[in-house]
């Protein structure tokens, strides 16, 4: 059993918190790695996505969408906010730390990512980032392409 770094929340507690947040989540803890598989539906009309979260201490939580396969906006060449490995980019370096509960951070962040992904399929613009996009006040907005 790997030792828990100071201040870090131990994996058993992380697992319990994930199950408390999403009771249908399946979670295993083996060889110092916590793996959770769960279904998230960010809005009442969104798809139900099966997501896998893998996490070990001294590493970052890795999040993948298993099902359904992620699609592309017709004008796009690649998925935004996804690493080459296929893991989702959910936060900026320093925004997440191992003293935080996955259930209060990574889980809702993943759900938010999925929401913005569905909106990206419509608009071709990623609205989930921290940058402010001012909404056009007049219709139609001036094309920015």
């Amino acid at each position, binding site marked *: 059993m790997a030792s828990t770094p100071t201040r870090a929340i131990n994996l058993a507690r992380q697992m319990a918190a994930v199950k408390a*947040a*999403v009771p249908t989540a399946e979670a295993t803890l083996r060889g110092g790695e916590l793996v959770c598989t*769960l*279904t998230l*539906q*960010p*809005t*009442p*009309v*969104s*798809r*139900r*996505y099966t997501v896998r979260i893998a996490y070990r201490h001294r590493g970052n939580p890795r999040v993948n969408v298993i099902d359904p396969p992620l699609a592309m*906006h017709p004008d*796009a*060449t*690649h*998925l*935004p*906010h*996804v*690493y080459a490995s296929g893991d989702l*980019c*959910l*936060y*900026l*370096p320093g*925004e997440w730390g191992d003293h935080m*509960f996955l259930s*209060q*951070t990574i*889980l*809702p*962040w*993943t*759900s*938010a990512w*999925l*929401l*913005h992904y*569905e*909106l990206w*399929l*419509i*608009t*071709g*613009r*990623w*609205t*989930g*980032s*921290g*940058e402010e*996009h001012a*909404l*056009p*006040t007049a*219709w139609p*907005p001036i094309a920015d*392409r």
Partner: protein
Amino acid sequence: MNALHLMPEADTDSLEQMLSMLLDGAVETLDVSLDLYETAVHRYKEVGTWLGLHASPDYTIYPQGSFLLGTVVGPQTRTGEYDIDLVCRIPLHKTSTTQEQLKQRVGNQLIAYRRWKQKQGHTDGPISLESRRRCWTLGYTGFHLDVLPAIPDDEHQPHGILLTDKNLHAWQHGNPTGYARWFSTRSELSRAYLEKRASIADVPVWHIRSTLQRLVQVLKWHCMTFFADDTDNRPPSILLTTLAGRAYRGEDNLFTALRNVLAAMPGFIKRRNGQWWVANPAHEEENFTDKWNEYPERRQAFTTWFDELTATMDNLSRMHSEGLDAVYAHLTKSFDPGPLQHSFTRYANRMKSTATRQRMNTTGLLSTTTTTGPRRRPQTFHGQHTDARD
């Protein structure tokens, strides 16, 4: 800034709320902006004041139609301008004027007003003035004021008027003020609307949209899209507004109200002495389906449109987990995509990761209203590309 529907912005916890929010955001973009509204009111009030000083204090100018009802879906012209209907009421008896004389009398005053504006060196006067079949049209930047000459209708007081029509021999009856009062009472069946209106007493009523007003805007918007290439057979707005007003039962949720109204609507299309009949609630003798008896294809067109909209709403009501993008794709089959894009984008911005008040429930639902579930910490998506099209 447009008039706001007082639906609690944050409620998107159910499919109905979600669809209501998205439709609401779309028709909001078609509504008259508050700036344009204020400018237009300012302009026609000035015409009214001028008439009072130069013609007679008994001349009055007041709005009618969708501008008065708060159900504008525009812009209506190809050049992107809003048509605003006004009544110019002159207290004459119909035995002392002909339609033609009345039309000319009002026209002369408007010509004189325009000349006076130019002489004063004012730059906010009408750019153009034209005579139309039933009205005089004053052109301004972004909108037209259609001024309908009218005299009191002695048989239908206090609000009844008689209107001119170049193509018809007889005076046309109308009661736009009475109609607006009827429509307003239908809006007020929604308790939430009444409460909200009372709670923000310092906001002018015009700036607030009831569920019924938004509902009528959705019907008109869909109808405009559906009949884009066949305007002759397009059901008149007043017919849609009347049927919706009659069928409305005070629902607060826009989508639920739409489905209920569509289900009840056919029951309000009557047969009277072998004629199709939908009476004007403010003038019982007027039949809004008059033309159906003459041109059966008009009724057929209405039925086709009605069936299409009903099917669209039924399909939407079943889209529980197909994806926001699938909902959008379905909506764009029958609605203009521009306002929909705007509405979805607005929602996206509202659900930004910087929104710290969101919580996630046990199924992943992100909500700004539920009090259960962990509060979401703010997050910034990280990645080299914010826009994959760059």
